[in-house]
């Protein structure tokens, strides 16, 4: 009898319940459950948020030994190599290598490229200006972060939240400020999911009823040859201009080329589905794992969440203002509402433009027109990320 109680006692003393000594661990477990609720029940970016929340849950369960941030600290300081991290680390440490070396975001971009139709952008190249304008949020948030005394590399990573592009934010942050990866990724994906709530009030405040009712002309047709040449030309031009962006943009354009060639349907299908889904699981869980209680729960995380919101707001404002300018210059032919779609977040932001346009004029169909700035925003945020990496990397 005494033997059994001794065994049970030993089992209890080595259990996670006994190691649950810090109230912050409980807070993080509760926070992970809230994020799971948001992802599953509210359907806020579920494909990523569920994985991130579960990774967060796993990493904060004491005694599991799945993720060791101290190993990564040693790796960054050069005291340890990747081989030693693999040897001494847990499952999530091994998965995290894909984030650390920038593999997952690039592979996600491969899938994004295979799923993206650049036709609306090719039909209306002026969309690229709206995609550029919406990057205003990145540099505004960067400045605000500097004012709040964040180091320049961290400020750049916070700013990239305004690109409304999860893989780009993760890619840049994992290089510039890996300690801040979890709050930045969570802020980016949370606000992307909240775009239908964040953007409409700004769109209404900055545009007039007359502007919102503008009906745009039908898009001109785009040939298959143009769609094939586009990713090749963009890769050559942008990667020569900003070589640091080559991993992201190269993969985006490769994925798009696989889609458009007409002779690589199987590869395109794999990039869009099998590969994309696999990498999404690895990426989301390993990013969530970096949100350990002793590193995540602090005032800086709250500041990042607040700055992320500012980044989204100013990105929307930037796109709308250039949209208004184009409305004036075109003699009222361009609906400024499509400017807000320049914040990437494909296709959510374009759908918001469509919904707001139809509220003003029920016979208005802005979706395809908004897809141009939307996909231009992906290119714009990748260019901005490459620039920030070149400046602060």
């Amino acid at each position, binding site marked *: 009898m005494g033997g059994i109680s001794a065994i049970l006692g030993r089992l209890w003393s080595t259990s996670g319940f006994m190691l649950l000594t810090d109230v912050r661990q409980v807070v993080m477990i509760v926070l992970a459950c809230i994020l799971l609720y948001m992802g599953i029940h509210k359907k806020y970016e579920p494909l990523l948020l569920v994985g991130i929340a579960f990774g967060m849950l796993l990493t904060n369960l004491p005694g599991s030994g799945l993720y060791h941030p101290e190993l990564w600290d040693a790796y960054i300081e050069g005291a340890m190599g990747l081989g030693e991290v693999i040897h001494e680390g847990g499952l999530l440490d091994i998965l995290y290598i894909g984030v650390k070396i920038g593999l997952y975001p690039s592979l996600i971009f491969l899938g994004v490229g295979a799923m993206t139709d650049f036709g609306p952008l090719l039909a209306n190249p002026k969309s*690229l200006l709206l995609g550029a304008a919406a990057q205003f949020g990145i540099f505004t948030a*960067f400045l605000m972060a500097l004012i709040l005394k964040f180091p320049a590399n961290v400020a750049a990573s916070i700013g990239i939240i305004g690109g409304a592009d999860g893989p780009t934010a993760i890619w840049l942050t994992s290089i510039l400020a890996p300690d801040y990866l979890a709050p930045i990724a969570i802020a980016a994906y949370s606000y992307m999911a909240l775009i239908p709530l964040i953007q409409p009030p700004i769109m209404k405040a900055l545009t007039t009823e007359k502007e919102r009712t503008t009906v745009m002309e039908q898009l001109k047709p785009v040939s298959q040859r143009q769609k094939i040449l586009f990713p090749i030309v963009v890769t050559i031009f*942008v990667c020569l201009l900003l070589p640091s962006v080559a991993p992201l943009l190269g993969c985006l354009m490769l994925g798009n080329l696989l889609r458009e060639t007409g002779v690589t349907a199987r590869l395109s299908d794999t990039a869009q589905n099998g590969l994309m889904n696999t990498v999404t699981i690895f990426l989301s869980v390993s990013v969530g794992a970096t949100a350990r209680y002793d590193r995540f729960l602090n005032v800086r995380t709250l500041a990042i969440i607040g700055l992320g919101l500012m980044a989204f707001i100013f990105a929307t404002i930037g796109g709308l203002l250039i949209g208004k300018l184009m409305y004036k210059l075109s003699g009222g032919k361009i609906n400024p509402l499509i400017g807000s779609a320049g914040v990437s977040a494909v296709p959510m932001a374009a759908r918001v433009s469509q919904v707001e346009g139809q509220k003003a004029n029920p016979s208005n169909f802005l979706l395809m027109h908004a897809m141009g700035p939307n996909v231009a925003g992906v290119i714009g945020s990748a260019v901005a990320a490459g620039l920030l990496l070149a400046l602060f990397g």
Partner: protein
Amino acid sequence: MSIGTGVVYSLLGIAVVFAALTMLMVIVVLLYRFTTPKAEAPAPVRAAEPPQTQEIVEFGFPEAPGSAGGVKLYDTPEKDAAMVMAIVADAMGKPLNELRFLSIRRVDAENGGSNEI
């Protein structure tokens, strides 16, 4: 980094993004110009003459933006036409707005009538 330097970096950053995407816009315009075949003189098209008995519905209102244009309906109710277009789009695995339907004619099986989509 000082705030002043940060302002300079921010202005530089947004300027570079604008410059890069503007250049890309020019490239796309050139790409479009050089890869679009010059418009040939339109060949005379003989208009299809529907049988006298058929009811022809042609939408008179302007084409919806983003759509592939109007569609002529020969002896076909609008609801049936919408269903046919949805089925064709689904069978082809293409979004409806990427397909162009010129006209839809009701097939008269007994008379061996042609179907035109």
